[in-house]
């Protein structure tokens, strides 16, 4: 089962992952990653202090087709039984989920690697632009070089 969604409203990952898991009897493992709007409460979080909100914009004619293609290639590459890929767009507050990727497979390696693969591609190769609101206004987030390095792991 492939389930790819762009959502403009808050969502509860558990409410999607539960039914997704149950839709695949016979599976061996499910790996799920949920990314949230990071707040400033961590100790090592100096650079995140003061984030009040986050906005993800996208380009509709490209974003969903890109996610569908990514999902298809993950399903094939990692021999998945199912893949759930959900991404928020619009304005979000700290603590709200931005992205949820869940992969069901007969063996754990496929499930874990598929989530890793999808997240790297969503970060560095999907059509989203992120900006954060701080006390002094909105700031666009530059892509991180780490993200490109992560993505490069998946090329032969």
């Amino acid at each position: 089962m492939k389930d790819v969604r762009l959502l403009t409203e808050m969502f509860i990952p558990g409410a999607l992952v539960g039914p997704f898991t149950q839709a695949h009897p016979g599976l061996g493992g499910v790996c799920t990653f949920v990314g949230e709007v990071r707040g400033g409460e961590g100790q090592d979080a100096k650079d995140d202090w003061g984030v009040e909100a986050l906005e993800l914009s996208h380009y509709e004619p490209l974003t969903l087709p890109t996610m569908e293609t990514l999902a298809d290639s993950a399903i094939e590459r990692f021999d998945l039984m199912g893949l759930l890929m959900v991404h928020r767009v619009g304005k979000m507050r700290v603590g709200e989920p931005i992205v949820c990727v869940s992969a069901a497979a007969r063996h754990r390696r496929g499930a874990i690697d598929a989530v890793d693969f999808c997240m790297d591609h969503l970060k560095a190769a999907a059509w989203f632009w992120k900006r954060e609101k701080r006390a002094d206004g909105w700031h666009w987030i530059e892509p991180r070089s780490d993200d490109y390095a992560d993505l490069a792991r998946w090329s032969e």
Partner: protein
Amino acid sequence: MAVKIIFLGPLRDMAGMDSTQVEAPLDWARLLKAVGEDIAAQLQEERVNIACGGRVLSDKTELQASDGDEVALLPPVSGG
């Protein structure tokens, strides 16, 4: 009819607008003139892409947009 140019992400702020309409046809040279100096400088950077009619161009300098096409200017992404 015309060509609609869409500014995405940080380019939207730089342009001061979400989109603009220009006369068709629109090629790379005319696009650079149409968007102003700052955006034109961005477009010349390798990491900025252009989509026309919902497809990302592998070579953006070969842009050929006709009446009714949407041309999207795509800065580097920062998603997930």
